[in-house]
Every structure is written in C-alpha cells, then in structure tokens.
C-alpha cells in the first residue's frame, strides 16, 4: 500500500474545533485519516504550527513552500510525490490513492 503524507497549514488543532466555527472539512479529514490508520494504512499528518521542522526536513515540501508560500497548503504527498495541493483529498481520493478498503463513512 502507498504511504500518504499530509502537510497542514498552521492549525490550532487537527480538528479545528478551537477556531471560531466548526469546519466540517477538518472533521472529515481527521476522521478519514483515523479510519485509514485503523486499517493499517501508513498515513502521516503534519501541522505547520506544531511541527515546522517536518516541513523543512522534506525537500519536496520545502521547495513547494519556497516557491508558492503557505497558500500552497494543505499539501498531500503519496510515496513522496505531491499529488494534491491547496485542498485536502476527497474521500474517494483518500481510498484510491492509498489502496485502502472502502471505509464506512458518509461521503
């Protein structure tokens, strides 16, 4: 199975519920990643506000940030290659890109 890495913009917390409003998109992504991980899919996630070191350590991410600034985030990598930027993967993309089983979740 492929390895997925998601580089978030600076977030207060992964679910975003600390913000002034609830963002269903962040809830969806947090849940989706949780479900993939539960299946044994390798799916890592980094938050710019919490783990800036990870953004520097990855040359692909670092170069993308250097070129386009923080607006490029969120950035999704599959097996080290950028596959999507400026938006999170859809549920279908999560499944097809990682080769995971279809997960039980309203789409």
């Amino acid at each position: 199975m492929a390895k997925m890495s998601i580089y978030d913009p600076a977030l207060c917390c992964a679910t975003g519920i600390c913000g002034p409003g609830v963002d269903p998109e962040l809830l969806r992504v947090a849940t989706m990643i949780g479900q993939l991980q539960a299946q044994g899919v390798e799916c890592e996630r980094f938050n710019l506000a919490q783990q800036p070191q990870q953004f520097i350590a990855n040359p692909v991410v670092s170069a993308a940030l250097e070129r386009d600034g923080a607006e490029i985030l969120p950035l999704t990598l599959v097996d080290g290659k950028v596959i999507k930027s400026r938006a999170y993967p859809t549920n279908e993309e999560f499944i097809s890109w990682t080769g995971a089983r279809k997960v039980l979740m309203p789409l």
Partner: protein
Amino acid sequence: MKGIIMFAPFDLGSIPLTKYLFFTGKGGVGKTSVACAVAVTLADQGKRILLISTDPASNLQDVFDTELDGHGVPIRGVDGLVVANLDPEEAAREYRESVVAPYRGKLPDSAIASMEEQLSGSCTLEIAAFDQFTTFLTNDAINREYDHIIFDTAPTGHTLRMLQLPSAWSSFISESTHGASCLGQLAGLEGKQQMYRHAVGALGDAAATTLVLVSRPDAAPLKEADRSSAELRELGIRNQILIINAVLENPTDAVSGKLHAKQQAALRDMPQQLAKIRTYAIPLVPYTILGLDAVRAFLSGTRPEQPAAMEHPERTRTLGDLVADLHATGKKVIFTMGKGGVGKTTIAASIALGLARKGAKVHLTSTDPASDLQTILKNPANITLSRIDEKEELDRYRKEVLDTAMQVMSKDDVAYIEEDLRSPCTQEIAVFRAFAEIVEKAGEEIVIIDTAPTGHTLLLLDATQSHHKEVQRTKGIIPPSVRNLLPRLRDPRQTEVVIVTLPEATPVFEAERLQADLRRAGIHTQWWVVNQCFSLLETDSPILRHRAAAEAGWINRVNALSAGHTATIPWMHDTPVTRLLDTL
C-alpha cells in the same frame, strides 16, 4: 444592640507561614496591598522574599514605583525582596518567539506569519502564563533562593482557571491519545508533565502552601471569598486563612456610623463555611498604599508621611447626564468596564433603568460569574436580563460541535472529537461566541453588557481580535454574530464603553491601562464613572474626611482624561439602583 464582631489583628509574628502564600479575592479588596505589605514586612525581618503577580492588570509597578518584568526585579530600599510581574501577553510573546525563531529564514515569511498567527490565540496566552507560573513553583534553584514565595494572584475567575489548570492539564496531557490535540501546538510543553504534577502536589500540601483569602467587610466580596474557598478546597487546597481588610473601628458621625453598621451587618451574615476559617482583620486606613512608607505602615498601624491632598474636585457630571447622552446619541451597544469591585454591575443596571425610563427597550447581560443582576433589578419594565454562564456555554458549544461532527462522522469517530473538546481553550471559545451572540441582538433593543473584571475582559477582547483574523482565513462555518463583532465594537456611533472606577490610585491606574488597551484594539471610549465618592458627602469622621480629601486628585485626573465626560456618584450604604438615578 447587637455585639460588635471583632477578629484577631493580622499580625505576621503570630501566624505560622508556609513557603508559598497565595492571595486571592474579588478585585478591589486590597489583595495587592496586603500581599505587598506581607512581602515587605517579611523582607524587613531578614527573610528572602519573592513576590509574583499573575494578574494581567497588576499594579505592583505602581506600588513599588519600579519597572517590573516576568523574571524578577530586586526592589530598591527593601533588602531581600524580588518582585516579578507575569504578564500573560508578554509570556505569550516570549513563548511564540521561542517556537518560531528557529525557523526564521528556513521557512518562507508567509509560513512564519501563519505560525505566529496560530500561536496568538487565547490558548497560547493561558498556556504561556501558566508555564511561567509553574516554573516559579517548581524550580529548585528559585525555591532554594527564597524563604517565602508570595503569589498576588489574579482576580477570581482567572485565578481559579489558572489554579485549576495544573490538574486539568496533567490529566489532559496523559489521557490524550491521538496526540494532535490543542495542546500539541505547544511543543515546548511536552515532557513537562512531571513539573505540573509537582506543582499540583505543592498546592495541595498544607505544610507548603497557604491560601490567603482577602475580603472587605462587604456582602459581595465575602460571597466571592466563600466561592473561591470552596472551589479551591475541592481542588485540594485546604490550608486557608481569611483576612478582612478595611474594617472601620470607631464610627464618629452619621456617615461613618452607616459605613460601620453596613460592615457589621455583612460580617454577621458571612457565609457559614467561610466563618469557620481562621480570620484576621486589618483596619481601614486613611491613606493610599503606594510607595514603601505606606506599604510598611499598613500592617504596623503607624501612619506614613504623606501630605494630605487638599485639592478640591472640579465640577463633574452625573449619571443622569451620562444616560441622557447615551440616549441622545442613540448608542446600541454599551459596556461597563473596570476593575472588579468598582460597582460595574450597579452602574450597568442604573444605565439600563435610565434608558428604559426614556422608553428604550434594553437587554442587560453579564459575563461576570459573580454577577447578581436578578437581585438588583426586580422585573423592571422594558428590560430583559441574561447572564453568560461559562459552564452552560461550554455545554452548548460542545453539543453544537458534536452535532456537526455526527453529520460527517461515524459514531465511533465522534469519540475522537470529544478528546479535543476537553481542551481548556474550548471554554474561551464558547464564552466568546455567547458574547458575540448577545452583541448581535443590539438593534431594536439596546444591549448593555456588564463585563467581567479587567483581566478577563482583556482576554476576551484579545480573543475577539485573534478570532477576527482567523475569521478572514478559515473556511469553517462562522456564525454571522462572530463575523460582525469587532467591526461593531469599533464603531463609536453604535458602541460606548463606560469605564467605571473609584476615586483611588489603583482603580484609576488600572482604568487608564484598560483605556489604552481598548484604544489599541480600535475601540473608542468617552464616558467615565467615578463611583463611591466620600467627597460628595458631608462627614465629620476624621478617617473619612482624610479619604475624601485624597479623592479630589483622582477625580480631577479622570475628568481631564475624559475631557469632562466624568460622572461622579456618592458613596451609599446600600445598593440603590433606583435611588442612584433619582438623586442625581
């Protein structure tokens, strides 16, 4: 004739003192004065003392006439005394810088800016202040260096939150399993659980920590002291003493007689649980506790060399003038702000009543947990009352988040969200949203908000600002009330902030800082109210005449600051919302 209630004098020589002394009490009771006097008296006895304020609106700098910082400054003229002022804003700035600095030049500016923005919220503020506070409590070198560490803690709500944090966060950090929680952003705090446990242990150890509850002989602060006492006892802080400050001992005329009777009545009706605590009294003094002479005199019963100010107050306006102006200019959102204990609630209620009598529809609300609007105004025409209750708001917000989550998540996964909802930041958000919703109601009706004491108000405003930024960025569902809040607060045609103070040094200094902070936030202020003026009464009591004489300078200062928009109110022996307007 009922017997006079008397307590043992507060004599440091006869009281067993622990390593840590925590002072708490409603704003304006003289908590800082007592903490300073204890610190200076002990240092004069040759002890090594560290005095720390955790109040965002602290006035320790004024008391010692010394520029302070968060790390400790020795006080000139008092051998062995070091004073630190933990400013949450400054602590947050230092914390933010420590997190961001290593990445400057390594990440593009836009990434650095978004990190900084994310680290500017109320979570960071609380966490950074707490972190500094815990360091003083648990650092071995600091503990070896001082015989006593005295905390002049923040006014009630904030203090409680701060003191509750050690246990709340220790369990939060250890129980959080997915590791991507709110506290995760505070990378610098990881691995500090040990320190927090240690802090909780020290707070609950009766041989190490004493909680000093400070109150005036007045119903409201006594009730507040009882509440703090119970809450902290529940948190394991059982070693408590009570100090009643500003007790008038020898009434000599009608006015001082009324003050004495009022004090005695309050002491007789003291909450039962509170009455069981060892209690000491400090007499009312006719001078201001500013400068070392006054601090030293305060507990020794002597009198400092202070020239009696013989200025006369300038002509000021009345509360009636203020209400007429607010009515004529058609203000829709009115705040009363100021230090706790200055009478904000009474003033807010009086303004509400005044406007209602002019035919306006008024909504009066409070964010102050100690507010008792219902008992002050009884079913008034044209006025609706409400209160922002932190616990209720938190429950409401949790339910809203979980309902949203249910729509996009399976039931099992909602547990994931529930973890984040246990974060301490969620409470700030919940209160903030309730506050925005009430301001949103202004339009048809005038909304009057009796806000919580200064420190909390500042945090609330800060939250407003950082959320305003976030609103522009986030793609989340933002209620219109939140989106409209700051633009509305910044519009002087709609919003008026009435700053309430007393004719004394500390409340005036703090009100000035509040005004500066409001300006920084782009919020306009015009009217000031100087409450509880003895100088507007006829009295022969020497001690009250002394106090009255000292008031003039402060009244004139406020009058100049407000360009003549100052309403003064005489001291009164009861809480007469209706009389307040009628007599003026």
